[in-house]
């Protein structure tokens, strides 16, 4: 926790930006020097997106390179595979099991690889999977996938649940607060 680098990856439009803002804000509460690097503009349009959250006593670079991430939180399986080499050797990959076909797969120019979680685990990557989409749906909205995954990530940090819920309330629009908090709690319960 003293020094940590977290990557949040997914497909443009999945809500990765909001997830990184929640994480950045809760870390700030604990007095760390935190940086959150975002992606805006063209790549947001259904492309592969990545945000970085880095903290420590002193943080310089806002970006994460290959072999540096303590955690990768992925919203989609192919994106988990794409960014896996950014994990450090004993890093942890948390991924939702949702799949979204990229355009080369839709047009038939490429194939979506099968059994991604198994292949990642075989390669020696500590991989935790969860069906974040179904969990989000069960609490009331597919749009809260990001909070389900943040809930799962939160299990690795020694921070009280109440603080996470307060931070979510600071970041999301008022009418969606309870929905997002419920999604977070559901994700946090996932073994």
């Amino acid at each position, binding site marked *: 926790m003293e020094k940590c680098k977290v990557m949040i990856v997914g*497909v*443009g*439009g999945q809500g990765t930006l909001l997830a990184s*803002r929640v994480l*950045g*804000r809760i870390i*700030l509460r604990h007095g760390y*020097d*935190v*940086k*959150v*690097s*975002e*992606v*805006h*503009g*063209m*790549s*947001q*349009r*259904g*492309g*592969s997106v990545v945000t970085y959250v880095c903290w420590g006593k002193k943080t*310089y*670079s*806002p*970006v994460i*390179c*290959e*072999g*540096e991430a303590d955690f990768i939180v992925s919203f989609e399986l*192919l*994106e988990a*595979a*794409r960014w*896996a*080499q*950014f994990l*450090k*050797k004993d890093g942890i990959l948390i991924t939702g099991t949702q799949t*979204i*076909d*990229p*355009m*080369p*797969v*839709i*047009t*038939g*120019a*490429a*194939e*979506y*690889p099968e059994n*991604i979680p198994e*292949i990642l685990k075989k*390669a*020696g*990557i500590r991989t935790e999977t969860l069906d974040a989409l179904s969990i989000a749906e069960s609490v009331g909205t*597919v749009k809260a996938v990001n909070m389900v995954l943040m809930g799962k990530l939160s299990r690795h940090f020694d921070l009280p649940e109440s603080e996470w819920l307060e931070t979510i309330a600071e970041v999301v629009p008022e009418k969606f607060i309870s929905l997002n908090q419920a999604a977070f709690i559901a994700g946090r319960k996932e073994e």
Partner: protein
Amino acid sequence: MKQLMLGNEAVARGLFEAGCGFVSSYPGTPSTEITEYAAKYDEIYAEWAPNEKVALEACFGASVYGVRSMCGMKHVGLNVAADPLFTLSYTGVNAGLVIAVADDPGMHSSQNEQDSRNYAIAAKLPMLEPSDAAESLSFTKLAFEISEKFDTPVLLKMCTRVAHSQSIVEPGERTALPVKAYAKDAAKYVMTPAFARGRRPGMEDRMQAISEFSETSGVNRIEEGKDSECGFITSSTSYLYVKEVFGDRFPVLKIGMCNPMPDSMIKSFAKTVKTLYIVEELDGIMEAHVKALGIRCKGKEVFGNIGEFSQNTIRKALSVKIPDCVSADLKIPARPPVMCAGCPHRGIFYVIRKLGLTVFGDIGCYTLGSAPPLYALDTTLCMGASVSGLHGFNKASQVSNFLLDGADPSNDNTVCVIGDSTFLHSGMTGLANVSYNGSNSTVIILDNSITGMTGHQQNPTTGWNLKGDPAVKIDLEALCKALGIERVRVVDPYDLTRCEQVLKEELAEDEPSVIISRRPCALLKYVKHAGPLTVDPEKCVGCRSCMKVGCPAISVKNKKAVIDTTLCTGCRVCAQLCKTGAL
């Protein structure tokens, strides 16, 4: 209280605290949020101008009146604003004038990765280069001080990783400023040759004075190191990457003002280290300067001049161990950005592709139409180049073919596409050229009623302004007619049959025409959608006809079309291609 702020948000905070009262900008990633955040302060008047040149000239006017002003843009926007920029260096300012320009190394969202620092040198203007959000705030305030103290516009150079990274900021209070009285001064503000010659020597004195200021002002600083085996002169994000790798091991001269450079500091710093490295993204500008001072150093030869740096760039260049990583043996398909499900551009692009036209493209979401399966564009150059480029293409074809066989070709297989905001930015003048010089060009304006790619900014055709108030809505049909185009047609891009019919008719005509393909962006909050389509598996024969439109909401699984109901808006563009009525 400490807050996390985006670099761009921190610039806006700096504007507020510095008593800036006037902001005029044109949106462009990664600069857009500066102006959007500035607009949230009631104390600041903020507007979207039709283009960067207009915006900068408006800021000049506000400065002359006596109000601190700021103009924000992306790096390529400074090309558009370069005309006023170079002469503003001669006139100087009344109240402070700051130009925030955001570079995009690595081209996350741009058509090139030009280095804006070259403009500071060419226009003889001071330029500040923050590394993070806290500096974005403090340098913005400093920029106004320098502007007024030395009678000069000041450039504030952002880049993607500074603009779009959040870091810790401690906001301060606003200093409200009285209007600085304007006094008529033709020798200062009227740049005729005689007056401009009068101003020119002062620009040299000014840069000399700013250079002396930069030596002692604290904007540049030396950070001691334990080991003098090597040392770094660096700025912006490159400074962060050097520190990430080496911490306090080696001394660093951190440059906050990259033009003019602090020569005395550089000379004394260079004496304290054995090997001097210059670390800067893109061009070797500081390196050339240091070398011109007669100091041996290494820069581009080890770090390169292409793309965005990271801490691994530094490690690789200086043979520091790269962290180990594990990778899985997987072939991973690329995931390029795509036009959204329900995007109104998709239908017209499908028709264009079907007719096999040559297409001059422009800058906006519709640039994504160049990707498979639509392959709809032949060129993309810069804002407005679609209209003017098509004119040149068609005119050259007319002239060449007329010379060869005496026949006047009809230019019946070429069009250009340009968005509503881009047309107002730089397309109108191109259209005036089409009508005035008479090329038989068919111009398609993709009017989605918003500036889309940069994240939904209002423009003069939308009927709303930046502050969210109703505004004059420029009538595109009347505008095109006023620019000399007799034939102006409007189509709904969701109606493929009608689009094809109108396109064929206008291509067949022997005079220029404009087709306005009009439907608001599917992501706009006020746009109501019909709801997702369903596939009738009995009727679907798996022919993949619906896949020709390249919509992210349709795929074919087990020889049947599948609709992603979380994405599909029900635009029915794909359904019009289905031969069996399965959609």
